[in-house]
């Protein structure tokens, strides 16, 4: 039989981990996992960028592309509920896997995805978020009056709780805003020092653990395309997505390590800052659940958050066992998630 060509749109430039390995590995895995039935070709970022992926997928141009709910929050309130809970983990592989299992097994999430016209396969996670700043941040007093860029609602609430001011700056303007002194720092993974060349302006990494950014669908599949595939082919896509996702998570960690070798000082946070952050996280879960109900009409938000926390714990344990071997993580996701899914009905 002749292979079917899927159109992939990574939506980012070639040196970004969201392209290589997230899509290059996916492209390599696809024919292997599908016995040669599926092939693919890549569309450039100038054709469809990540912020245009919603249109790209719904127009039918893109068969498989990454989907960031942050750009289109109104589409996926159920996914945002857990996706926005940044502070729950300190292990990116575990967060990616927990997210994958949660979304695959969450009926309300699947309903909103169906309405949006995409089929969910996999999530991955950024490396741990810290504060990258132009002035040193060690304890609570240093946070006072700081203007910090944030990229998500929970980070925003944390910055406010620490007595600093959260700011929204376009990601492309972060460098200029930092070097102008319009902002004092940015809450993100240290990998950004490399990806956005912030090392000329950022002098300090405050190594306080601020969790992860895991609200990402790595390989969202156009629902029409998904319907047209056989159950085996669907599983091949899901497994390929997971395999490339764990590699990309590793790649983020490598870049972070590289960034920390640059000319930046890494500052261990004081105990009061760590304690205040822990206190914030506990109380904020209630805030997140209440907001989800009031603002977006999500039912049983607290229960859903509790279930997600259980999954985070579960995957934390599995990840510890894997001890940094990402192929073992991919294997575990296949065993715990994909082998239990009935692909003749899933995501259709």
């Amino acid at each position, binding site marked *: 039989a002749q292979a079917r060509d899927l159109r992939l749109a990574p939506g980012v430039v070639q040196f970004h981990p969201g392209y290589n390995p997230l899509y290059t590995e996916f492209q390599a895995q696809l024919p292997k996992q599908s016995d040669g039935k599926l092939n693919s070709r890549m*569309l*450039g970022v*100038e*054709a*469809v960028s990540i*912020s*245009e992926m919603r*249109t*790209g997928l*719904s*127009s*039918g*141009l893109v068969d498989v592309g990454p989907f960031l709910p942050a750009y289109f929050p109104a589409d996926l309130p159920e996914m945002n509920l857990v996706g926005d809970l940044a502070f729950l983990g300190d292990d990116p592989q575990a967060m990616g896997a927990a997210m994958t299992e949660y979304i695959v097994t969450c009926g309300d999430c699947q309903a909103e995805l169906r309405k949006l016209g995409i089929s969910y396969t996999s999530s991955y996670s950024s490396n741990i978020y810290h504060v990258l700043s132009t002035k040193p941040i060690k304890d609570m007093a240093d946070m006072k009056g700081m203007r910090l860029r944030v990229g998500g609602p929970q980070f925003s609430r944390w910055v406010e709780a620490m007595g600093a001011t959260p700011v929204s700056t*376009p990601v*492309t*303007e972060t*460098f*200029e*805003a930092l070097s*102008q*002194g*319009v902002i004092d720092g940015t809450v993100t993974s240290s990998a950004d020092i490399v990806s956005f060349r912030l090392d*000329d302006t950022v002098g300090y990494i405050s190594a306080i653990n601020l969790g992860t950014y895991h609200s990402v669908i790595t390989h969202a599949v156009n629902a029409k395309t998904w319907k047209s595939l056989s159950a085996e082919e669907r599983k091949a896509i899901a497994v390929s997505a997971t395999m490339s996702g764990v590699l990309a998570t590793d790649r983020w960690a490598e870049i972070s390590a590289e960034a920390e070798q640059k000319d930046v000082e890494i500052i261990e946070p004081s105990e009061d800052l760590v304690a205040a952050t822990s206190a914030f996280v506990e109380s904020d879960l209630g805030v997140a659940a209440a907001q989800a109900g009031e603002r977006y009409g999500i039912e049983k938000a607290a229960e859903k958050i509790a279930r997600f926390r259980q999954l985070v714990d579960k995957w934390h344990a599995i990840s510890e066992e894997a001890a940094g071997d990402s192929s073992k993580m991919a294997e575990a996701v296949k065993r715990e998630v994909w082998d239990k899914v009935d692909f003749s009905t899933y995501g259709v």
Partner: protein
Amino acid sequence: MGVEIGLYGLLLLLVLLALRVPVALSLILVSLGGASLMFGTDTAISLLAAKPYDFVAKWTLSAVPMFLLMGFVCYHSGLTSGLFNAAKVVFRWLPGGLAISSIFASSGFAAVCGSSVACAAAMGRIAIPEMVRSGYRPSFACGTIAAGGTIGALIPPSILMIVYGVFAQVSITQVFLGGITIGLLTAVSYSLIVLAVSWLRPDIAPRRAEDVSHYSVAQALIEIWPVIVLGVLVFGGLFSGLFTATEAGAVGAMGSILIALALRRLNMAQAKKAFLETLSTTASLMIIGVGASMFTVFLSLSGVAAYISTAVTGWSLSYLELMLIVVLIYLFLGLFMEPFGAMLVTLPIFLPVFELYDLSLIWFGVLLVKLLEIGMITPPVGMNIFVIRSVASEYASLMDIFRGVAIFLVADLAVVALVIFFPGLVMFLGGS
């Protein structure tokens, strides 16, 4: 098949442009049609119809209307009218001093105005009559101002550079810094031309000015303080970190309005003119940007962009050969195209090539704006020439002005060659 559709698309684009279809609509039509042929009408339309919104809803682009407004307010309220007198205090003793003064007055005006047409119009009304009275040949006087006007788009703020930065995804501040060098270089090169003409042909540009009026340094400063204050406000605030380059536009526009109001130089009619000109310039530019962003998608999907860049790489041109081609293409397009159209139609093809050649896109942005500005003073379509013709119609015909400006093209080509042979020239302020 895709590449063929892409190439036919390029051809169709040229035909539509020749048939007087607006640049924006030509781009949109070719993109919609081409994408429909490749992927079906529904896909093409729903893909491209998101572009108008996605293109204009950008933070950096908000600087375009703001800097335009600052320039139009300065112009209509006459805040900049003293620049010429001030420049005369400094340069009048030189051979051809009035012409050189007008060139540096344009450079000063450039610091508050984002486009070259506005700069040429403003300076033309003030300087041409006086130059002609002092014995300059009218065609040369008009040519000097038309050429000097191009500095308006080189010295920041520059609308062309902002739009380039948005498209090439490079730091606008960095491109601006390169613009300072190339703007001043251009001013100096034009002045050298004036000196030479004045030396060789005093009948065209007198060596000594017939003194119309004497200005002291103090008087000159009094006349130009609004511009100085505005410059200090915008660039001082920018470099001391009070605001970003994008925000500087709004601060500058507000500053110009407040100063003009304080001096009682801005009435309702002038304000209305400034706002309406800002609006129509913004809207007509933005819709071209929308078309160009659709065209980028079409070229990418058809594979023609990759096809051309692979072909160019296949020729394994040297840096100088590549640059020669680029210069010739832009000089050719500049003959008949308006700079935004020429820039946005070509960037989707050139940017991938330059990335392959590992050229600095900041440096290229500066060179590109210079090349496009040359097109403003070449026949048959030279916007600056048309503007000078409309503000100084009693002094020279269109042909006279084209003849008068021709000598300045020598300086332009010299500057272009300098920038190509010594890329560090425009990069040293920018650093990275």
